C-alpha cells in the first residue's frame, strides 16, 4: 500500500456512495416489488465494491475476496427467498404492486 493508492481511494468512495443513493432511492420510491429487489441488489453491489476497494487499499485482498465470495452466496440465497416471497404475493394478489401489501398496519 502506498500514498498513491490512498489518494485514489476517494473516487471509489464517491462511486460507492452514489450507488448507495441510487439503491436506496429505488427501494423507497418504486411501487414494483421486483424493482425494490433490484434496488437491494444495487445496494449489495455498492457494498461489494466497497469491500474490494478496502481490501485493495489495505493490502488484505485475500481476506476481502473470501469475504466477498461468502457474501455473494448469502445475498444470492436472500434474493432467492425474496423472489419466492414476491412470487407468493403475486399469486395471492395478481400483481406486483407494493400497494397491495399494506394490510398490516396500526
Amino acid at each position, binding site marked *: 500500500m502506498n500514498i498513491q493508492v490512498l489518494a485514489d481511494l476517494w473516487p471509489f468512495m464517491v462511486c460507492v456512495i452514489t450507488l448507495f443513493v441510487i439503491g*436506496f432511492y429505488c*427501494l*423507497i*420510491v418504486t411501487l414494483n416489488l421486483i424493482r425494490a429487489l433490484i434496488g437491494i441488489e444495487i445496494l449489495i453491489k455498492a457494498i461489494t465494491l466497497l469491500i474490494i476497494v478496502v481490501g485493495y487499499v489495505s493490502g488484505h485482498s485475500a481476506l476481502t475476496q473470501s469475504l466477498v465470495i461468502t457474501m455473494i452466496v448469502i445475498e444470492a440465497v436472500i434474493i432467492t427467498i425474496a423472489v419466492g416471497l414476491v412470487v407468493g404475493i403475486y399469486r395471492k394478489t395478481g400483481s406486483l404492486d*407494493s*400497494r397491495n*401489501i*399494506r394490510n*398490516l398496519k396500526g
Partner: protein
Amino acid sequence: MNTNNIFLPIIIPLIGALCALVSFKKLRFLLESSAFVIAAVNLILAVILFKENISLNIPWVLGLEFSLRLYHFSAFILLSVAGFGFLVTLYSLRFLRGKEYANQFYGYLFLTLSLANGAVLANNLILMLFFWEGLLLTLFGMIAIGNKNAFQTATKAFIIVGISDLALMLGIALTAYLAGTARISNIHLPLDTLGSIAFILMAIGAISKAGSMPFHSWIPDAALDAPLPFMALLPASLEKLLGIYLLARITLDMFILTTHSAMSTLLMAIGAITIILAVMMALIQKDYKRLLSYHAISQVGYMILGIGTAVPVGIVGGLFHMVNNALYKSCLFLTGGAVEKQAGTTSLEKLGGLGRNMPVTFICYLITAAAISGVPPFNGFFSKELIYDGALERGKIFYLAAIVGSFLTAASFLKLGHAAFLGKRSEENKNIREVPLSMLIPMIVIAATCVIFGVFNALPIKYLIQPVLGEGLLEGHNFSGFPTNMFLVAVTVIVLIAAFLNHLFGVKKSGSGLHASDHIRNAPVLVKIYDLALKRFFDPYEWGLKFSRLLADISWAVDRSIDWIYDKFSVNLTYSLSRQISALQSGNYSLYVVWSLVGAMLVFVLFFIK
C-alpha cells in the same frame, strides 16, 4: 413460685379461645364445659397468684423487652378480671344456648381475658400497647356478632376507640421518649409542657377505654346491638377496670400528679361533666339496657373525678368505686339480660310488674340499684362518700356536680325499677318465669358481694386498695369504716330522700313509673337540650361524621378534578398519542425504510454533537 407462672394468665385463656373457636356447633356440651373449666381455672389461678410479687424481663424483638410485672395492684385487677370473666361465662352458658354465634363469643371472650391479663401484667409500654390494640380487635369482633345493626355499631366503636388508641400510642411514644425507657416501673415523669401532653394523650387512651365522655357514644348503641353478656363484661366491668387501672397507673406511678395541678383539675372537670351529662341522658331512656349503659358512662365520671382529685381520699374512693361499679353494674346488666331472656324484650314500655314473676332477679336488682344510688349500707355509698370527700377538698363545684349526679342516679333507678318490676303487669307477661339457676348464681353472688363490700368495707379498702397507694401517699390514714364526715352523710341522705319524693311526685303527675322523670325532661330549659341530645347533637361521633361528610364533599370535588386529569385527560392523551403512533404505522414498507434512514441520520447527528 416459678417466675414463668406469670405467663399462665395470658396463656390459659388463649387456649380457651382457640378451643372455642375451633369447636363444632354440634359439640355444644364440650364447648360449654370447656369454657366453664377454663374460666374457673383462670379464676383459681388469679387467686393463687394474688399474693405473689413477680417481675420478669426477657429481651424481645427489636431491642424491646418482654417484661411483665405482678404486684398487688395488678394482682388485684387480675383477680377482678378473672372473677368477672368467670361470672359472665357462667351466665353466658345459659344465655347463649342455641345462639349461632356461641363459639365465636366464647372465643372472643377468652381472647379478651387473655389480652386484658396481658395488658394488666405488662410492664413495658410497647407490650401493653400490643395487648391494648388486641382488645380493640376483640371489642370489634364481639359487637359485630350481635344483631343486624351490630356491624355498623362495631365500626363506630372501632373508630372511636381506635382514635383514642391512636392518642394512647402517641402518648406512649412521647412518654418513652421523655423517660428514655419503656419499662413502666422505671418511669416517673414530672408534668412539664411535654410531660403534660404525654399525660393528656395517655389519659385519653385510658378514659376512653373506661367509656368516659366524650368517647362514650358507642356504648349506648352497643347496648342494643351487641350480645348482652358482652355488655356485662366489657363496658360494665372489664373496660372500666382496665381504663381506670391505666389511669391510676399514669396518675400514681408514671407521672407525678400534684394536688393543685392543671391536669388534676382537667381530669376532675371531665369526670364531673361525664357524671352530669350521662346521667341526664340515662334518666330519659325507655330501654332497660340503654338506660344502664348511660349509667355505665356516668359512673366512670365518679372514678375519674375521684382519681383526678389527686388527694388520697379521692383516689381511694375512685378505685373503690371502680370495684363497686364493676360489681353492681355487671349485676344490673345481668338482671337486664335475665329480663330480656324471659320477656323477650328490654323496652320499658312493654315491661312491668315482673317483680312477682322473677323475685330473685328483682331482689338482686333492688340491692344493686340501691348500691349504685349510694344508699347506705351498700358498697356504693361508701365509695361515693370518699369521692365526695375528695371533691369537696378540691372545690365545691365538683362536689355539687357529684351530688346532683347522685340525685339523678337515684331518680332514674327508681324509675327503672318501678317501670320494670312494679306497676301493672301486661297480659303477655303473665307466664314469665324466673331464669335458670346458672344465670341466677352470678347475680346472687355479685349482689351479695355488694352487701359484703358495703358492710365490711374494710375488707376491700384495707387489703385491696390502700396497698396500691402505698404508705407514702396514705400518710397513715385509713379510709375504711363508716364515713367520718357526718355533714356529707347527711347531705347524701337528704338527696336520696329528695330523689324518692321527686319520684313520687313524678308518678303522681304522669300516672306511671315509666314517665316518672318526664317532668324533668319537660322542664323549661332542659327540654330543648334533651331534644337536641336525642337527635345525637352532642355525639362527637356524629359531629365527626358530619365533618367528614363535609370533608368528603370537598375532597370529592378535588378528587373529581384530579380524577378527570387521571381518568379522562391523561387517558385520552395517551390514547390519542397511541392512535397517532399507530397511524404512522401505515403498512407501507418504503415508509419504514425512510424512517430507518432518518433514524440513522439522527444517530450520526447525535454522534457529532458533543
